[in-house]
């Protein structure tokens, strides 16, 4: 069996599972946010069960429209807060919270070997820890909160092998954008993606979270990494639970295997309006931008801010654009503050915000007007994603974003 099959078999109480098989699996973590939880709570209440199956395994994070942007979103956050208090589940109030897919692993709530379901498509982020993590809708999450299990179809797995050493300024975001550019936005539809190879072995946990995060952008059900020493140490430093390490068998079956030599990979940019519309930064041409956003569940971690600060320190943001930097969690914010990055950002002329998903989904904190162009380290550039349906979003990693904020147009960090 491959990695996905091993984890799913263990949670379904079976010795063996195969792609296409329907299973009922026990979950370790059930997650929802301020957009999806209100519907999940409404559906949970229809089930006629008073209590969730295990409050310790449920996590509610108000992050999308928090700090609340208007009365309607404040009402939604209130539903979440009241349910969380009544049920005694894990809940992170504004001030402790961060973007859900930055804080769950940071706080040790997800560890290697877990099965995680979340009412948010980027739940696949935790695959970086060797957990099987997948996004579902609110009704699925309502049922998981009540019963502790979910129905699932075992996915086929596509294996990706990255050989070579990554050049400077090229990271997890570039690897995953390149991959989506190669296979398309439905290139891994219904499938699990398993990432491996020399470049992956050398990739930081931060870079792995970024890659796993965007598996959904290729239609993937999960983006999985083998939990090596780096991943196990990461979890051990944060959780009292013991990691369970699953490894693919040498003769495991895959739907396809893609091999990429990434030793000369350039920083990648996804052009409007699909994450698969990818070009190396040198081939993007002259694109003047009105806004840069650095943050999100994709690239809002300490290492991302470190890269951005290394480029922005001592420079000025171009006077034709605004640069918005959003640390993914309070912890990331505090560490960046202590490292002097926040000071560097403010001196460069950036706006720095408290953690929120905010602009990534066109919620608040950086909405685009008609005709405006934004380069963001986020994960989606669909029509209207960040505001006006006549605005444009370009996706890249933090190095390209920071360099472009200084240049006023999309440029390589090497320039």
């Amino acid at each position, binding site marked *: 069996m491959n990695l996905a099959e091993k984890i799913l078999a263990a949670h379904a109480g079976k010795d063996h599972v195969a792609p296409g098989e*329907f299973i009922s699996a026990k979950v370790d973590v059930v997650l929802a946010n301020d957009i999806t939880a209100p519907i999940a709570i409404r559906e949970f209440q229809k089930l006629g069960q008073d209590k969730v199956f295990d409050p310790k395994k449920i996590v509610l994070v108000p992050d999308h429209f928090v700090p609340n942007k208007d009365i309607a979103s404040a009402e939604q956050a209130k539903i979440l807060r009241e349910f969380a208090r009544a049920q005694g589940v894990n809940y992170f109030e504004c001030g402790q919270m961060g973007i859900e897919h930055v804080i769950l692993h940071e706080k040790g709530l997800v560890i290697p070997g877990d099965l995680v379901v979340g009412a948010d*498509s980027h739940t696949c982020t935790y695959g970086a820890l060797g957990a099987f993590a997948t996004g579902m*809708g*609110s009704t699925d999450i309502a049922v998981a909160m009540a019963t502790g299990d979910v129905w699932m179809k075992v996915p086929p797995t596509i294996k990706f092998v990255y050989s070579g050493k990554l050049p400077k300024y090229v990271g997890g975001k570039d690897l995953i954008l390149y991959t989506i550019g190669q296979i398309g936005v439905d290139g891994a539809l219904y499938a699990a993606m398993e990432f491996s190879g020399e470049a992956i072995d050398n990739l930081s946990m931060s870079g792995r979270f970024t890659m796993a995060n965007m598996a959904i952008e290729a*239609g993937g059900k999960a983006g999985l990494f083998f939990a090596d020493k780096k991943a196990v140490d990461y979890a051990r430093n944060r959780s009292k639970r013991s990691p369970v390490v699953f490894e693919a068998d040498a003769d495991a079956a895959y739907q396809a295997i893609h091999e990429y030599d990434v030793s000369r990979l350039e920083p990648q940019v996804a052009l409007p309006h699909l994450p698969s519309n990818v070009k190396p930064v040198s081939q993007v041409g002259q694109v003047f931008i009105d806004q840069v956003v650095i943050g999100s569940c994709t690239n809002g971690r300490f290492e991302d801010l470190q890269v951005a600060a290394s480029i922005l320190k001592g420079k000025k943001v171009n006077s034709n654009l605004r640069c918005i930097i959003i640390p993914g969690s309070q912890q990331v914010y505090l560490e960046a503050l202590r490292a002097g990055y926040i000071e560097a950002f403010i001196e460069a002329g950036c706006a720095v915000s408290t953690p929120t998903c905010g602009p990534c989904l066109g919620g608040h904190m950086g909405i685009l007007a008609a005709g405006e162009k934004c380069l963001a380290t986020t994960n989606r550039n669909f029509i209207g*994603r960040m505001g006006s349906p006549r605005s444009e979003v370009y996706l890249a990693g933090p190095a390209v974003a920071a360099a472009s904020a200084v240049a006023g147009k999309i440029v390589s960090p090497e320039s």
Partner: protein
Amino acid sequence: MLKGHVFKYGANVDTDAIIPARYLNVSDPYELARHCMEDIDLDFIKKAKPGDVIVATSNFGCGSSREHAPIAIKASGISAVIAKSFARIFFRNAINIGLPLLESPEAVEGTDAGDELEIDLASGTIKNLTKGKTFKAAAYPEFMSGIIKAGGLIEYTRERLKKNIGAKTTKVA
């Protein structure tokens, strides 16, 4: 039997197009339906009538996990969505809330905007009344038919919980 006219779309219709995130500060189905498809088709909500059908090519519903997307489509009166393929989370969500989806590349190829369709969900038969052609949709796996038959995942789970009182609460390890 479902009957209605076709709204036709291309590939990769994402959930931001189905219901933009700026409207996700509410969860009332009819409030959401008022903005369904507006970023790619301003006419949709003005013209959609009960029974109408959305027909799209591949990867319909890609992007976020927002259940608001199938909820908005259902509340706008759409009786079914036919596509060559659906994004995974959207597929689950639609089945869970009782919005019928049919996978039929032939029906998508053989249907234009405005055509009148008649759909028999039990047999998976799609009749294009305008063109006088009949298509077959892929059958649902047995497990999923159970959810559809119960009227959605909540009803399915309620029955399951009733039958198996002992499994109502899972023991905490």
